[in-house]
């Protein structure tokens, strides 16, 4: 164990340069965020992830955000266990009918001000699962969405771009 720890200390970090936020995402956010909300949140956000019907591909890449290469927490972003502690809901999947109510309850349990980020192509338009008897639709059909991060699944870098855009917007007009 000592050797592994020592090497981690001496070899320098694997963590990569932060990506610049995506302009299109900044524009989407500028429309949806109200000033009061931005002022209150500052440069630290707690994220609650909700799988509302995903194939688990998006979850794998969201997990990767916490590894040494992306190190999400350096931005002041962290995952929390309860919606009551969250500022941001990160929602994946086409929303299944079986998860619709659970998503709504999670949304209602999250204190204001709050943001919803829909992650993945399915979350944006239900993708290959649209038109199923078991699917309620995209995330925006169930709860209001502030930002879409597309991709099947979006890579950790794309996820970071979106989340950094969220932080930037929160700061800019604070």
């Amino acid at each position, binding site marked *: *164990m000592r050797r592994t720890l020592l090497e981690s200390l001496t070899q320098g970090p694997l963590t990569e340069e932060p990506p610049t936020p995506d302009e299109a995402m900044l524009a989407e956010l500028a429309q949806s965020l109200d000033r009061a909300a931005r002022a209150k949140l500052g440069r630290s956000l707690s994220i609650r992830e909700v799988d509302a019907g*995903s194939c688990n591909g998006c979850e794998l890449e969201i997990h990767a955000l916490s590894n040494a290469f992306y190190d999400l927490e350096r931005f002041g972003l962290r995952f929390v266990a309860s919606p009551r502690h969250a500022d941001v809901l990160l929602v994946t999947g086409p929303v299944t009918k079986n998860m619709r109510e659970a998503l709504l309850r999670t949304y209602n349990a999250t204190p204001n001000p709050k943001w919803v980020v829909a992650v993945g192509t399915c979350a944006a338009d239900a993708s*290959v699962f649209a038109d199923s008897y*078991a699917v309620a639709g995209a995330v925006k059909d169930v709860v209001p969405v502030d930002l879409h991060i597309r991709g099947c699944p979006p890579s950790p870098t794309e996820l970071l771009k979106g989340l950094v855009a969220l932080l930037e917007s929160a700061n800019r007009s604070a």
Partner: protein
Amino acid sequence: MTLPRTTVTEEQWLQAIDRLAEGGATLLGLWGDDDCVHMAVLDQRSDIVVLTYMCKVGTYPSVGAKHPPAIRLERAIGSLFGFEAVGAPDARPWLDLGFWDVRHPLGRQAPAQKVAPYAFLPAEGEGLHQIPVGPVHAGIIEPGHFRFTANGEHVVRLEQRLGYVHKGIDRLMQGASLEQAAKLAGRTSGDSTVAYSYAFAQATEAALQVTPPPRAIYLRALMAELERLANHFGDIGAICNDASFTLMHAQTGILRERCLRAADACFGHRLMMDVVVPGGVARDIAPDGLASVRALLSEIRKVFPRLIELYDNTASLQDRTVATGIVKPEYARQFGAGGYVGRASGRGFDARRDLGYAPYKELSFDVPVLETGDVNARVWIRIREVEQSLALIEQILDRLPSGEINAPIRAPGSAGEGLALAEAFRGDVLVWLRLDRKGSVARCHLRDASWFQWPLLEAAIEGNIVADFPLCNKSFNCSYSGHDL
């Protein structure tokens, strides 16, 4: 695989059930169709037969009555098709949680009715309390409901209720073009996207009697092993993390990320989605792909032995994993549990070796098996499988044939059926499909290994403390989406 499917009489159906109950055969799957149910059975080690029972009056003799692994499959058939399993021990719905607009969406549809609240199985005694967990869990994981009944810290009964991520994949498959259907198959369980695409492609090729070119066959295996490596690294770290040993999680997280980056460099997608397609592979490995895989192998060979040593020598970690969440070998055999769940409990089945699909019959590898069946054994099986996958990838790189990567797929002109199993990291994935004359999918059923692992988790946790549940659950790492379909 050519498909020996036979329509059987009631007597033959009952005989097959007896064979399953006696342990002479293993249940591989049980699913519905327009007017019948199909049952896939593994006889001895490598003979697969599919039996079809015509549900003339909407009923069939229950398999679950004598062979418990079939119970949830029958409940799912009941919810999706409306066929009744006569004599079934449990007639509660499965997958249908009462939120759909229709009943029996794949069979004779009817408007949804108001249903009584779901009755969980009882547990009675002084001082028992219930702990409901989910569907939304505390973590970045898939949704499902767990109902614990505990006596103090000790779990007396766990009952799962799944189906929250049911997306209706079997129904979406009906009438889908091969291209569309392959995309659906690849999104059944994201962590096993290669394995699902692999099994789907093989089943399609069996139905169309097409053989992919050798290069495609080797590239598929390369992707399957990269997927296995990435998932096993993720799991080993996550299990240790659930025992609060974060160093291991951080280190295996780096290895996992390196696997995904190598996959991206080779095939242009970190999870390698939609690369395995019927007839071959959608794109060839990138010119510098081979070098990035070789670099990955040497990095893993350098770092991983030290991590194994770390796992083996950390007493506080072993204290959590040894003798926790034991799956008895007789259950693993009875349920036909695949992957590390089966192999940690003495069941050595591996579709790569036992069915010997291409190219694995030309490659040499071992299938590690242990008997203790605890969390520790499931970690060790993963460790040993990482080593085997490294050796397999080396062989694949050395032998990678040149040439075409795709065999042409033409409309068959007549209906055809195919069945295939592919070994995903968590166990065998079964895909059965029927194509129509134009080459579209008439029916397709995908069966995840988790169907036969989830019930064993209920048994494994009994008598353990509630706090060890995350550890046990992670050591199984069953799929929700692959199960819920």
